[in-house]
């Protein structure tokens, strides 16, 4: 499609804990503008609409609008979703509560632990006759009257507006679930009905039940929110569909998101990972650690050959979910983490001062020193530049707290104490990053570190030094990099069918029509979403495992493949992922078609070549970990740096919403797109 001349703006909106970030990308000149506005937790749609209106009162010139929402996630974390009822097999109403019967590892020595109440109380969990076996054969027909009676009890007696349906072995044969879903929707058109096999075709009944319950739990909340957003943005002139990020990459239109709410649950952090994957490809970095440093957490993800890794057993707040989710791990801690002395040993976290009272330096009543206070003491943050000067900062109070609570008990100087807070935090982060790479049989030193988020530039150089990572990249507008990633997403729809057969040539032939059917459904979906044929692509894949194993790995099907090619691909993948291949027979569990509708999206825009290299605007005294003490560091403004410019540390780059710190044994290089590369100096 040729963009209308007026469609030159692309917007991405990311909601964090405290701010709505609106990133506006102008296709005409490649300029990106970031605007922040406080969130409105009571009515999140209002904050989004207001933040967008600040930047662009009319949306007629907007050609694409991408959004990552945390609404579903928050509803789960705060237990603020809908009251849900469950309909399942007779005799199995308690699957959700029995769960896997495990205690969270953090409570492994708590022998009086009592799990929080289940998301669905027992009285709202009903069983109906009907049963499939593990091969998907019907052992007992579905009792349709019992389904309707269960629906009546849940809707009419209990007043529920959301029902989850999950039957045993529905991954192998979803007929009973589909029939039950249809009966309930027909009887109660106003009630949201979620059916497990529509969301996942994986086995493990507790995990699948939990998945469909969470879907039903957030469905009304998300549906209301997206409905409001659609209509208000349309009123403001938006003439294109609103695109919502999925947790596992790709985007969907908001109308589709309303039917698959659970796939949005980690849509915010997914934006950063998609952005990291794009940069990894564009910059030719085969192994990247994406490192997103926010105010309350640090999120890391391994990106290999431009592809983010997916999580093996996804869970949110202890609830498993069988939907694709990037393997994003929370490591270390954020700027609000409290430092304290425990019997002579310095600890950082796990407690956080949060936004209130916040760090001591905010002067809102905080008395315990945080990482942010330590950063001020060490000169990494400049009170004058803090959040672009929007907040009064009391560095003296921060220093006094570090002295009283840490330096004195440990017998150190205030500087050493503050530096030690960073050392301890780094030791924890290094451990966590090593663990997520070791899990995949890789050495973290082979990776480049891509660091973003408000404090990404603050920790990156320090972390890279500590881990022996040679290359660190700070992208443009690092504070809004997650939103940038959203602008890079394509529309994606996946269709799957269960197979459960040995992988041989005969079976592969029989799969041909199955794949064709899935592909035509994907085509039709893309067409309905307005994607032109030239922008449509599809990839066929099979979830494969060794016989007797439980977990599968996805193997892509290429045209002309024989089963031996797929088996070999699976062995290689298994060896790469788990360290070994097995002599066992190989089975297909699921076949999938992923349909992609390419969206126009921003590429990297080279900065104009030449230009006068930026000069320092001053100096600031900071703690140089290379020198082991305070040094004078040159302060640069990011907008003054030009392509090809090289500056040796120690130095600081300020850009209003972010600060990048470079130490004395490191070299800063600006690439043609304006990315900051921090490398170890050759002369060191």
């Amino acid at each position: 499609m040729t963009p209308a001349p007026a469609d030159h703006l692309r917007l991405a909106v990311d909601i964090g804990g405290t701010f709505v970030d609106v990133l506006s990308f102008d296709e005409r000149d490649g300029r990106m503008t970031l605007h922040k506005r406080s969130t409105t937790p009571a009515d999140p749609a209002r904050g989004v609409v207001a933040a967008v209106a600040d930047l662009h009162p009319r949306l007629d010139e907007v050609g694409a609008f991408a959004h990552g929402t945390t609404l579903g996630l928050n509803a789960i974390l705060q237990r603020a979703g809908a009251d849900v009822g469950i309909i399942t097999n007779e005799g199995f109403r308690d699957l959700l509560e029995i769960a896997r019967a495990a205690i969270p590892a953090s409570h492994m020595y708590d022998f009086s632990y009592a799990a929080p109440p289940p998301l669905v109380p027992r009285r709202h969990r009903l069983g109906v006759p009907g049963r499939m076996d593990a091969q998907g054969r019907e052992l007992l027909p579905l009792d349709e009257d019992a389904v309707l009676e269960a629906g009546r009890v849940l809707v009419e007696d209990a007043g529920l507006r959301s029902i989850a349906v999950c039957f045993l072995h529905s991954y192998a044969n979803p007929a009973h679930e589909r029939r039950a879903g249809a009966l309930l929707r027909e009887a109660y058109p106003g009630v949201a009905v979620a059916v497990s096999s529509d969301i996942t075709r994986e086995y493990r009944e507790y995990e699948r039940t939990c998945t469909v319950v969470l879907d039903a739990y957030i469905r009304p909340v998300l549906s209301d929110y997206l409905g409001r957003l659609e209509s208000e943005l349309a009123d403001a002139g938006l003439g294109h569909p609103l695109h919502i990020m999925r947790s596992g990459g790709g985007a969907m239109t908001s109308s589709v998101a309303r039917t698959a709410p659970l796939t949005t649950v980690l849509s915010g952090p997914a934006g950063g990972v998609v952005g990291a994957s794009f940069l990894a490809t564009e910059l030719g970095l085969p192994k990247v650690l994406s490192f997103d440093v926010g105010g309350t957490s640090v999120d890391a993800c391994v990106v290999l050959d431009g592809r983010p890794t997916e999580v093996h057993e996804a869970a949110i707040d202890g609830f498993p979910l069988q939907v694709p989710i990037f393997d994003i791990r929370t490591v270390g801690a954020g700027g609000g983490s409290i430092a304290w002395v425990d019997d002579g040993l310095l600890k950082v976290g796990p407690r956080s001062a949060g936004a209130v009272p916040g760090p001591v330096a905010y002067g809102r009543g905080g008395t315990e020193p945080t990482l942010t206070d330590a950063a001020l003491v060490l000169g990494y943050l400049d009170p004058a530049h803090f959040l672009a000067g929007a907040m009064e900062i009391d560095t003296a109070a921060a220093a006094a707290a570090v002295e009283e609570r840490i330096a004195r008990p440990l017998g150190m100087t205030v500087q050493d104490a503050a530096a030690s807070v960073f050392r301890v935090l780094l030791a924890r982060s290094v451990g966590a990053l090593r663990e997520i790479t070791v899990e995949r049989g890789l050495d973290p030193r082979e990776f480049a570190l891509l660091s973003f988020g408000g404090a990404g530039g603050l920790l990156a150089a320090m972390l890279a030094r500590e881990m022996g990572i040679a290359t660190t990249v700070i992208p443009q507008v690092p504070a809004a990099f997650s939103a940038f990633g959203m602008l890079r997403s394509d529309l994606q729809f996946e269709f799957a069918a269960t197979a459960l057969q040995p992988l041989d040539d005969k079976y592969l032939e029989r799969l041909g029509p199955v794949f064709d059917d899935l592909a035509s459904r994907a085509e039709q979906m893309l067409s309905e979403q307005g994607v032109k044929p030239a922008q449509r692509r599809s990839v066929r894949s099979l979830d494969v495992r060794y016989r007797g194993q439980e977990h599968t790995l996805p193997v892509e099907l290429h045209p002309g493949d024989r089963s031996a090619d797929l088996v070999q691909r699976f062995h290689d993948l298994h060896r790469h992922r788990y360290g070994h291949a097995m002599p066992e027979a190989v089975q297909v569990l699921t076949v999938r078609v992923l349909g992609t509708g390419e969206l126009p999206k921003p590429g990297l825009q080279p900065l104009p070549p030449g230009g006068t290299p930026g000069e320092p605007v001053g100096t600031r005294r900071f703690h140089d970990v290379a020198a082991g003490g305070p040094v004078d560091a040159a302060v640069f403004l990011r907008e003054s740096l030009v392509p090809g410019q090289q500056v040796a540390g120690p130095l600081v780059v300020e850009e209003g919403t972010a600060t990048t710190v470079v130490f004395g044994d490191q070299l800063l290089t600006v690439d043609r797109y304006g990315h900051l590369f921090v490398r170890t100096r050759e002369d060191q």
Partner: protein
Amino acid sequence: MTDRQPTGDTGAAAGAAELDGATVEVIRNYVVSVAEQMRRTLVRSAFNPVIYDVLDFGISLYTADLELMAEAAGITHFLGANDYAIVKGTDYVGPERMAPGDVYLLNYPYWSGAHSYDAMLFAPVFHPDVTGPAAYLAVRAHWMDLGAKDAGYVLDSTDMHQEGLIFPGTRVVAGGEPVRDVLELIRFNSRLPDLTLGDFNAQLAALRTGEARLAEVWDKFGYGTVVHAVRRVIEHGEAQARRAVAALPDGSWTADDWIDDDYVTDDLIPIRVTVTVDGDRMVADFRGSSPAVAGPVNLPIGSTLGIAKAIFKELTTGSVPTNAGHFRPLEVVTDPGSIFDARYPSATFTQWSAIVAFELMHKALAAAIRSIPASSGGDEPGFMALGRDSRTGADYVVSNNEGIGWGATQDHDGGNAQQHPSQTTVRNTPVEVLEHKAALLHERLELIPDSGGPGRHRGGVGVLREVRYTEPGEVLSMKKRSKTPPWALDGGREPRPSAMTIWPGTDREVVVGMYRAAMAAGDRFVNRTAGGGGHGDPLDRDPAAVVADVAEGYVTPAAAERDYGLRVHADGRWEPTAARQARQRGDDAAPRSGADPAPVESSGS
């Protein structure tokens, strides 16, 4: 306030100036991460679902003096047992005979502190600054088969030699090269050689990861500095634990309990522990328990230490990563040759008695420590199924660790259907996985109403699982506390114990604890797990809580009236029975501090 050591105390840490509390914490994080990276490597490389899905393993790092530096999350009592096994294993081999790249295999139960299938691999790690090993690494995991008398689990062995191939600390890798002769020996003695050697390789990969990472930590900080920091960490752990013990009331408390039988005779087996808190130390004294018995329920001392350590950890430093210092205030005393200190050739294969003893320590401590819960059902009430699946032509062995109701505490109801406290991180096996791998069909899997011990706080409820064999096979019921009910506290009531009913409703019906039965197609079993013990008089339970329990079906209206003294109607209205009214009048007449005339049974110990 702080426990900083005098500056002179740097001893062996040659060249290390006194370390500040930040550097010690940095090094501690690095060392703990070595254990965690070993864990990730093991899970990544394992063939065996018991390792990668059920997470049945234990990983530990030791100093040159065999003190625990760090461990990775795993089975709680494995971890404690590793500490004993590493001492016996290195003693057997002799550190002076060890060379870089060596790995040793230990599963001699009396040294390894576990049954013969929980194989521990250990490896010395060398550093140029010291002669002899500078550290040791241990990885224990459950192997699928080492050629014991029966497939799956052995329930009725009467000496060690019926429990599979034994290795006393045998060199299985010499200077980095696997010793082919030993591995071939394992291959020819195992019913499942590929899985067993696959797990061996996974453990080896974890040891190699640990070796490389520990060497990196030494390089980064200096060997002497790391040794010094680890010593500080251990001293810190000891101080934490001593402070926690000192906060407990002083005294000495004895509890008795019974293990069902040894599956050779039918007799109850008496066990006893006396726990003493004296200032900042604690003694767990198991003397007075039964001598070792003929069947395989005996515990080697390493296993008994594991239990005592897990309970001690709960009471003192449960939320922080473990090191040797955490256990210094604990002493364990046993009668040699008793069920808690079995000697060669006592049979030790089914160590469910460890789980019963775990709760026995709670029972003793409950007399003095208000936060201790009532009994959590007694033991781990699992089962195993074996057979051949005609759909695939393959033999199957599947197992399941079933949830059980946890004991109520003075503050809250017990958790419903959770893994027994002695193995909190283990998971059950999904119905769909069991039915996919084995020729089984589930008829029901539900919580059991009224199974929680009544009390002011109610014990958690247990689970009922009804399974039908669709083809011939075998079932193994595994429980060692099905003959006596789980104990309650403070006037709470006892729930029914766990049991399995095989062939229910037929003239062959049996109700069993530990049992092995051949099943024909169509045969059924019902596995029923206990609830937790109640805490406090059920007549004192908040009526709103009883009404909610009835609404949710955790308690039936009949039981609400019988146990809680409340008639609850379908619309939620309720009225007290005469018993509850009498109890309330009694309370009014004689406030809590006074003698309570209500006929409340006070429990034995």
